[in-house]
C-alpha cells in the first residue's frame, strides 16, 4: 500500500481491502440468512430452524409486521426479502472502487454508509417489536440484527475519511459536489 492511499492524519487506510472485505463478508452472511427467512415466508422452505424459542420464529416470520408491505401496498415483499435486498446492496457498495475510493469515489463510500446505517436502525426496530408486540423471539432474525449492528462501526471510518476529504476540497476553494463525484483537483 502506498503512503498516498492513507488519508492525511490517519494511521491506516480505511478503504483498504483488509478493512472492507470483513464488512462485505458480514453483508453476504446477512444476505444468506435473510434469503432463508424470506424463502420460509414465501412457503418455499417448509420449516424454520429455531433452537431456542420454540414457536418463536414461526410467530415472528408470519406476523402482521413481517407482511406489512404486502398488506398495505400489495407488493409481494416481506421484511426478510427487503432485508436480503438491503444486505446485497451493502455487499455491492462495499466492493465497488479501489483502495483510494475514500477520495476518488466519495459518493459510493457515502452511499455505503447510508445503506448500512438505516439497515441497522431497521433491525433494532424489528428486534424491539418482537417481544413487545408478539411475545416471541426469532433466533435467526436476532442473528441478522447482530450482523447489521456489527457492520455499522467498521463502515463509518471510511465515511469519515470521505467527509474530511470533501471538507478539505471546500476549504481550498473547490466544489464539494465535484469532490463528491470524485471529479477534479486532487491535492
Amino acid at each position: 500500500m502506498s503512503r498516498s492511499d492513507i488519508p492525511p492524519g490517519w494511521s491506516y487506510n480505511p478503504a483498504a481491502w483488509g478493512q472492507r472485505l470483513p464488512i462485505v463478508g458480514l453483508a453476504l452472511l446477512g444476505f444468506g440468512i435473510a434469503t432463508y427467512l424470506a424463502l420460509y415466508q414465501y412457503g418455499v422452505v417448509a420449516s424454520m430452524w429455531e433452537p431456542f424459542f420454540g414457536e418463536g420464529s414461526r410467530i415472528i416470520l408470519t406476523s402482521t409486521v413481517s407482511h406489512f408491505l404486502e398488506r398495505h401496498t400489495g407488493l409481494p415483499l416481506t421484511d426478510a426479502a427487503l432485508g436480503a435486498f438491503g444486505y446485497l446492496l451493502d455487499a455491492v457498495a462495499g466492493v465497488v472502487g479501489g483502495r483510494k475510493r475514500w477520495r476518488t469515489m466519495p459518493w459510493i463510500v457515502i452511499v455505503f454508509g447510508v445503506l448500512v446505517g438505516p439497515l441497522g436502525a431497521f433491525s433494532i426496530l424489528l428486534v424491539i417489536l418482537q417481544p413487545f408486540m408478539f411475545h416471541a423471539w426469532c433466533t435467526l432474525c436476532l442473528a441478522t440484527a447482530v450482523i447489521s449492528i456489527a457492520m455499522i462501526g467498521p463502515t463509518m471510518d471510511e465515511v469519515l475519511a470521505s467527509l474530511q476529504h470533501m471538507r478539505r476540497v471546500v476549504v481550498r476553494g473547490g466544489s464539494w459536489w465535484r469532490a463528491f463525484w470524485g471529479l477534479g483537483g486532487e491535492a
Partner: protein
Amino acid sequence: MWPRIAQIALGVWLMAAPQVLGYAGATRISSLIVAPMVVSFAAVAIAEVTRPVRWANLPLGFWLMVSPWIFWPPAVGPTLNSFFSGAAVATLSLIPGTIHDAFGGGWRAVWRPNP
C-alpha cells in the same frame, strides 16, 4: 473494549429479565425497548472511529435507574434490577477506553478541518 462488552451483557440480561424475573406492564415494555438500544449503541461504540456513540448509553442508563420509580412495578426485584443495571450502564459509558489509531482530527474535522 471491555466496557462495551459489559454493556452488551447487561443489555442482553435486560432483554431476558422480564421473563426471568417474571414482571410485566410498563416496566417490561421499558426494558424491552431500552435494552436492545443499549446493546446496539455499545456494539457500534466498539469501533474506535464511532467510540463517541458510547455517550448515547448515558441517558439510557439514567432512564433505567429512574423509570421504576415512575412505573412502580409491583415487586422490588425488577426495581432494584433496573436501578443497578442502569447505574452500571451509565457508569460504563463514561469510560473512554483505548484508542490506537489516528483519524485525521475525527468527526470534528468535518466541521473544523485540520489538514
